[in-house]
């Protein structure tokens, strides 16, 4: 049996036709458009033709960037708002963890709020009394339960909200990015509770940005982009597709940024920010810099361990004999992660003339995940600069491994047979 069936659902939100956000009765009467004002003219589609079924007892993950319609979908399943087109069928009692403690009244005590919130979520007074101690213990609020809720810290508030909501014991639990509340210990408790739900064959719909959680917990997943379903199915496959999209979007952004730098460099305006990051006598000019991958394709988002080439296009008016080419890679904190030049590496300059290319090639870009700035320079051995580009180029490094530091030496782990580990598959 299916717990949730979403049949060709679209949700349109009204865009405000008037300059003011709200219609006033006065203006409605003056214009005589009393009824038309209640019908959206210009609509924005938060969800478009979404189809999916969630079988009973499954955990279903919904991922997507901000504004992709995840929360809207959850609200539709919860029945808080209605789809504009299409139909949603649900089987079983629903509890929605959309915002924790939404129904709390700040002036009255935690105890009274538990009762009222529980009743709002569909419990009876009796069943709340039975679960009351569990709720309080789960929220770790034994000492504060008779204090007004306004005196609670935000963490306490959230914990209480979560504790009430999960104790409703729904058939379908909708979770919207709320597992990040509280400290580490409480997060574990929440996860335990979710696993407990899974074990008892309840249906869970999880909206989250944590792909790890989706891969680890969910039976299937859906990726929404701008209100449309891009992929649906195996969580690993869906997350992979989503990540690739995020990367390509990042690449596009970085590309645009790079284009701006290049344009400003060629335009040559003296006061521009780009020009201020560039100096030198100009005997040797670096007219362009490209970042390339192993297939000589321009790229700005690299993966740890990938091949990277930094190509400088050089033009020289009068032949130069004393010259050094160098590069420097800095992280966002300004730490130099790596710097080198032809002089340090014992390359003796002989002659440089006309136009040409200088390429720094590394087969394995062993940097940890992060954003990096690139310096390139051509200068004399005594450090007189010909052309120095400071922090003009940016690239990102992505990695599945969240190691720390600035440099990632190639390595393996080895163990004697009595120490056993197994590779996780996420």
């Amino acid at each position, binding site marked *: 049996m299916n717990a949730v069936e979403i049949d060709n659902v679209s949700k349109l939100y009204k865009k405000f036709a008037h300059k003011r956000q709200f219609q*006033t*009765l006065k203006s409605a009467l003056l214009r005589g458009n009393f009824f038309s004002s209640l019908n959206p003219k210009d609509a924005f589609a938060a969800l478009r033709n979404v189809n999916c079924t969630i079988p009973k007892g499954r955990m279903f993950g919904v991922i997507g960037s901000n504004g992709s319609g995840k929360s809207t979908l959850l*609200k539709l399943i919860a*029945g808080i708002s209605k789809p504009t087109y299409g139909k949603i069928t649900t089987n079983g009692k629903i509890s929605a963890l959309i915002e924790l403690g939404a129904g709390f009244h700040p002036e*009255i005590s935690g105890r009274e709020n538990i009762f*009222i919130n529980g009743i*709002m979520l569909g419990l009876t007074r009796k069943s709340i009394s039975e679960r009351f101690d569990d709720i309080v213990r789960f929220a770790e609020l034994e000492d504060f339960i008779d204090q007004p809720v306004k005196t609670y810290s935000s963490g306490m508030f959230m914990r209480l909200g979560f504790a009430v909501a999960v104790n409703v014991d729904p058939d379908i639990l909708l979770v919207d990015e709320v597992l990040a509340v509280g400290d580490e210990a409480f997060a574990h408790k929440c996860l335990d509770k979710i696993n407990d739900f899974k074990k008892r064959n309840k249906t869970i719909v999880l909206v989250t940005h944590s792909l790890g959680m989706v891969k680890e917990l969910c039976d299937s997943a859906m990726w929404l982009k701008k209100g449309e379903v891009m992929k649906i199915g195996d969580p690993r496959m869906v997350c992979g597709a989503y990540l690739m999209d995020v990367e390509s979007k990042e690449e596009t952004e970085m590309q645009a940024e790079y284009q701006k730098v290049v344009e400003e460099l060629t335009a040559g305006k003296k006061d521009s920010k780009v020009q201020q990051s560039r100096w030198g006598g100009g005997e040797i000019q670096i007219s362009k810099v490209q970042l390339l991958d192993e297939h000589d394709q321009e790229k700005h988002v690299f993966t740890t361990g990938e091949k990277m080439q930094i190509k400088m296009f050089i033009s020289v008016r009068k032949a130069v004999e004393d010259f050094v080419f160098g590069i420097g890679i800095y992280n966002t904190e300004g730490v130099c992660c790596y710097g080198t030049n032809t002089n340090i590496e014992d390359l003796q300059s002989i002659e440089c003339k006309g136009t040409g290319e200088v390429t720094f090639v590394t087969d394995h870009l062993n940097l940890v995940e992060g954003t990096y700035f690139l310096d390139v320079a051509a200068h004399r051995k005594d450090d007189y600069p010909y052309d120095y580009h400071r922090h003009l180029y940016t690239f990102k490094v992505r990695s599945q491994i969240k190691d720390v530091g600035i440099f990632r030496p190639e390595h393996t782990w080895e163990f004697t047979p009595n120490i056993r580990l197994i590779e996780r598959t996420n």
Partner: protein
Amino acid sequence: MWANLQNLYKYRVLIRSLVSRELKARYRGSMLGFFWSFFNPLLLLTVYTIVFNYILPNRALETQPYALFLFCGLLPWTWFASAMLEASNVIISGGNLIKKIIFPAEVLPIVSVLANMVHFLLGTPILVLFMIIYGVPFTVYALLFPVIILIQLILTTGFSLLVSSLSVHFRDLRDIIANLLTLWFFSSPVIYPLTFSTPQDTQLLSRIFRKVLYLNPLSYIMDGYHQAIFYGRMPDWRHLLIVFAASMATFVFGYFVFDRLRDTFAEEV
């Protein structure tokens, strides 16, 4: 509509809890607590007694003692007016609930009507007390008091549903209601009797005004209170029947509009 009412019945515990929360929250932190509900009308009545006995004596025979007459009308009027004012804001201020929790939205205006009714009921002992002090006798018609309250409850709920749902779309309704209530107050026999007498020279005007008065359902309710309690007479049963029908119609219409607009709340608040 019937299904809605049945659904609402399922939420009666919630309504009850919310009403008691409303009352508790109102007095939380105040020293006198619930005593305020008695103290407020008591103070009001004392002031009226002084004003209308010594400063601005009202000599109209039919409304003596005037302070008591006034109080008899003001008490239910305050219930009606506060409920309406709250209704014009209740969905917007409860937006957090509407957007995040699944429950019938009409609970909110109904709770504000009921909370104000409790206030009204808490004020009635003061009325009784002053009736005894003034030596105004109770008659068997005082038993009609709950009936009139019920009619007023239906009427107020109907208007509240209407106003609360419309105010989501028309934000200026709140200010309109506030002004309208002042007008309504003087167009209802709260501070004067329904059968007021006027000097000869203004009779045409008063005839027109009387027409307005008889179109106003609140007139019959206010008159009902005056008749049953203050005069100890039988209120005109035809009036009560009319206003009962009008209240039911208002309720049905209000609920209908509310129901039609219900789905738009989560997006508009």
